[in-house]
Every structure is written in C-alpha cells, then in structure tokens.
C-alpha cells in the first residue's frame, strides 16, 4: 500500500466521519404533528 493510497483511505474515512456526525447531530428531522407545550395539553 503506497503513501497515496494510505492518504486517500485515511482522508476518505475522515470525510465520512465528519458527514456522519453532521447528519447525526445537525440534520433537521421532520417535526412530530403534536407535542406538549408549556401547559398540560392533555395528550397523555
């Protein structure tokens, strides 16, 4: 395995890891239809 291949593999792994973390923590999920507010909404 030469240096170039090693670098490609390592930096691809870093790129994938960063993309995974961004998706995991910063990707906006669709909001649930209904959730409780500051008052008792009676949905439970």
């Amino acid at each position, binding site marked *: *395995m*030469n*240096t170039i*291949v*090693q*670098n490609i*593999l*390592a*930096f691809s*792994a*870093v790129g*994938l*890891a*960063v993309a*995974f*973390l961004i998706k*995991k*923590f910063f990707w906006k999920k669709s909001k*649930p*239809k*209904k*959730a*409780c*507010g*500051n*008052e*008792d*909404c*009676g*949905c*439970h």
Partner: protein
Amino acid sequence: MSKQINVALIGNPNTGKTSVFNALTGLNQKVGNYPGITVEKKEGVCKLPRGVKAHIIDLPGTYSLNASSLDESVVIELLLNQNNKDFPDIAVVVTDVENLKRNLLIFTQIKDLQIPTILVINMADRMSYKGISLDIEHLEKELQTKIALVSTRKKQGIDELKQLISNYKDVSVKPCLDIASIDVTYFENLKKTFPNQLMYKLWLVITQDVNFGKVDRNEVDAVADFKTKTNADLKRLQQKETIKRYQFINNVLKVGQTIDVTQAKDLRTKFDRILTHKFWGYIIFFAILLLIFQAIYDWATVPMDFIDASFASLSEWLANLLPDGAFTSLLTEGIIPGLGGIVIFIPQIAFLFLFISILEESGYMSRVVFLMDRVMRRFGLSGKSVVPLISGTACAIPAIMATRNIESWKERLITILVTPFTTCSARLPVYLIIIALVIPEGRFLGLSYQALTLMLLYLIGFGTAVISAYILNKVLQIKSKSFFVVEMPNYKLPLFKNVVLTVVEKTKAFVFGAGKIILAISIVLWFLASYGPGEQFNNAEEIVKTQFASQNLSDEELQNKITSHKLEHSFIGITGRAIEPVIRPLGYDWKIGIAIVSSFAAREVFVGTLATIYSVGSDDEETIKNRMAGEVNPILGGPLFNFASGISLLLFYAFAMQCMSTLAVVKRETNSWKWPSLQLALMSSFAYIVALIAFQLLK
C-alpha cells in the same frame, strides 16, 4: 410462496405477554418505533403448521380499549384501522391465570370488534400453587373462542397455540356484549345514521379522547342529522358498558373457574410484608444494590482486562503488519484505541442489565416502585416518577419518554428535568476508569472501596434528582394533581430466555448506539491530533532538536519531546489549550478538556477520546488504563489522575448535562427550547462549581 398472516399480541401489563412473544418468535424479532411516535414496537416472525408464517406484533400492555395514554392508543389505532398494513388477521389476548377476571375485560372488547380472537391463559403452572382449576370447555363455549393454556416457564402450550393461530378462520367472531344494550335509543339512532358500520367500532371512535391519526371522530361529529352525547353522558355510558362486561365475565367464571384457597401455597403475602416494609424494605433494597455493584466489580475484571489487552495487541499487530502511512496510523492510533474504549465496558454493562432484568422479571422492581412512592411524595413527585428515574440508569432518553404516562403536567415536567441526574449507563465507563485509577483496591466489611464509590455515585445521582425535584416543585407555579396506581405482579423465577434477550438487546443498543458516534469521533480526533497548522507543527523536529541541543537527550527522550510538541501544536492541541484556563482550576489538563467537550456527543466518548489522544504518535502499545495512569500533571507534577482530580471529574460527570441527545429529547417532549436550555445551564454550572470545590479542597 408461503402465506403470511398478521397476529396481534394484546394483553394487560404483567401477564407474560413478552414471554409468549419470545416463545413464539425466538430470535426472529426486531425492536423499532411506531411511525411518528416513540412508543416501542416489537415484531417478529413465527413459523406455523402447514407452512404458514405469522408476523407477530407485541403491542404495548393495556388494561382496556379506553385509551388514556399514547401506548394504549397505539393498540386501538391498529384494531380500528383495517387499512393498516399490520391490521391483525387474528388477535391473541394473553391473560394471567391469577388475574383472569380483570384480564378478560379487554378480551371481550376486542371480540366485539369482530376480530377473530384467541385467549391465552398464561402462567398455567401456577394454578396448583393457587388452588385454581379451570373448565376450559365451558370457558371456550361461553366466550366463543379457542383457549390455549400456556406456561412459558415450563415451555407448555406453545405448540397448541401455534396450531390455534394457524386455524384462525375457525374462530368465532360473535361478540360478547351487545353494545346497544347500554342505551337502546342512542344506538338505534346511531345505526340509522351509519347503517354500514360496526356499532362497537363507532362507539370506540366516539368515546376516545386520543387523536387516532387516520381514525377520525370528527367524521362522526360532522354528520348533521346525528347528535352525539355530552362528554359526561358518554363517560356514564362507558361506565355502564364496563359494568355489563364484568357482569358477563363474572357469569362465565362462576362455572368456568374454581379457586380453592385452602389448596393455595401462597408465599407472596409473606414476601410482600418484608420487601415493602417501612424499614426492612429499604434495608433489603440497599443490600441488593450493594450486592449488584460488588458483583459488577468482582465478576467483570477478568473479561475487561482480557478485552483491554486484546485491543492493545491488535493495534501492535496491525502496526507491524501494515506499511507506515496515514491509514495505518488512523487504524492503530485512532480507530482501534477509540473502539477499545467502549468495548472494554461490555462486561460491566451486561452485568448491570443482567441484575436489573432479574429484578424486573422476578416482580421485585414493582415493590421498589411502591417503596419509593412513599419517599417521592415528600419531594413533590409521585410513584410514577420512580419508573423514569429507575429506567434512567440505562439511558435518560427512553426514561424521559417514559414520563408520558404521568398525567400531571407539573410532575411530568419535573421528572423530565431531573431524570438526567440519574446515573445512566453512559456515565459508567467514565466512572469505572476513573475509580480504577484513583480509588485504592482495599475492602471494607468484604466490600471493595471501588464498588462502594460506584454505589455512592449512583446514590448521589438519585439524591440530587430528588432534591432538585423538591426545589422545582416549590418554584414552578403549575397547579395539578395526580394519583398513583401500581400493579404488584406475582413473584416469579426469572425466565432465563427473557433475561438473556434483555441483556443482549440493551448491551447491543449501548454498544452500537454509542459505537458509531465513538468511531466517527475517534477518526476526527485522530485527524485533529495528527495534523496542525504553521511552523511549530510542521517543523517540530527541527525546533525541538535546536531547543534541546545543549542537553544530552537519548533518542527515545528526544522522540517523546517531538511527539509531545507536535500534539501540543496540532489542531486539537491548539483548541485544547484555548479552553485550558477554564478547566485548569478543576485539576484537568487540555487533553481532559478535549475529552469533556467531545463527550458532549455522548458521555462514554470521554474514555475513547483520551485513548485516541494518548495513542497518537506513541510507539508503545499500552492498555487504556496504563496510559491514563502514566499521564503526568504538566503544572503540579505527579500523576494527572490523582485523588483530587479524579473525584473532581467523577462529580463533574455526576451532575453535568453532557448529552446532546437528551437535550434534543427534552426539547421534543416539552416543545420548547426553554426547558433544555435551563437544564443545560443549571446542571453544567452546578457540576463546574462542585468539581471546582472538590478539587480545591482535596488537592
């Protein structure tokens, strides 16, 4: 192609429904969520006679079809919506032989929906202990169903149940109760307006308080020539319906079930008297806790040492096998040490869940909830808050979701806010490694100091949660009232299969849930620690050689100085040194600072981060514990992880809100950023102050 049918497993809580599910599906099961909500959905596949396959859904435990919580509404939504892909071809209602009367209520309701319904009478092996005898023929005739007498403990009746399920077309769909009999005029009117609808289904749609998604009661209200009753009238009719159902059940059981109390060999009352005793109940509970923590330490040491050494050897082996380069470095100094930092804790996590699962399976956990209710009331919480607080020992996220069954909004909000203080399994790796480093190995009355420290940390977490609840109860101006009802299941010998499945499921969730994040963070950390900007990083070798030219350093010493210089000027070193002034008063160096910041993603990342940072540039393949023990405090000298900094770290993790996912769940459950922001600010400030005081007093 083989035929597949949908089977819904329904029943009251504590009837052994999950044991029947496990017996039917074995390992062919998966756990997920219902779409759009966070109620757990368990489903599996079972092979039936004649090549038929059954897709089995283990629905949440419910006492009746009159939903009062999100879990229960899931059951009704499925049973009322024929377009749902999981709509059952057959319903299997699981009952407990000792609580048949109460368990039959939901059976009669499902039967009235004209869904083929089989009755499983579970825990049949207990009949002789309780002096119970059943006339199955009479019960089948009166209830118009097929009955399977099952004992999952003795592995009896499961084949018969499979046979009954495969013959589901033979099961009668005749209702148990004519719903029109509770108010003839009203139902005649309803029938005229909706001639093609099943009356009982309509009645359920009209009377439920919960929004059912596709099943919409507004459609009923919108019909102009039909006027429904007021809520108070509907409630009165519901009560009448329940009374009529119990009259029917009583008549059936009068002949179908005989209980001879003189034949009962009941130990339950005797056990309950001791285990829920005002004084002895607590003593026994704490003794059990001590035993658990002692066992976690004594039994897990050997496999943990083995895993630790195996990961160190794997790194060394790969380093020798692969050519030098960035990817080899990433594997041996980033990924493997990072993953080793989580895998090492599998034995202890598995032991913890083993004990929790045994306590739950045996029926003892319900006694703990009852016992704790007395304490909780004084602090403004009800016994229902105990369930989230105890399940918080696994993870705060499902625990916060479990607050959904608390009716009072104030109690629910307080429970959501204080649950993250409970010691979750993610804190365990941090506690275990720090305790192993700073607490001596001696024993007191046969109990190791390390086990006692761990138990103390659990008690500190629980105590802080309760005291915070008391303060919040006084501060929050929300008026509400709630009642607490807990069912005491019978004592049972835990089923080996159930215990194993729980341990495997929870350990898997712990390892794979956090594992992916730890893997990704380890890779990013390796990059940040292996590369850096500017002259100081790129010409580290020359700078160090010039700096130490006058001192006669050996090659190894010089190499260590270069590695240390590079790490200090790498991206991570620059970031770490920027935050060092804030954490130095707590006794931490910049590397611990980085570990604290990265563990905000998940607490268990702390150990993996340190393992990765200490590995980068190092040629020695050491275990994580030895690397941490060898770290020297750059300012004060001596070990970095000493008693003062160790206690400070333990207390910081006990109180800090170090979990991004928990904050996201609190936001979702309260639909406001106000509460998670408050939680983050207060918990983190409190953790900082306590850790600061601890270090300054102990150093």
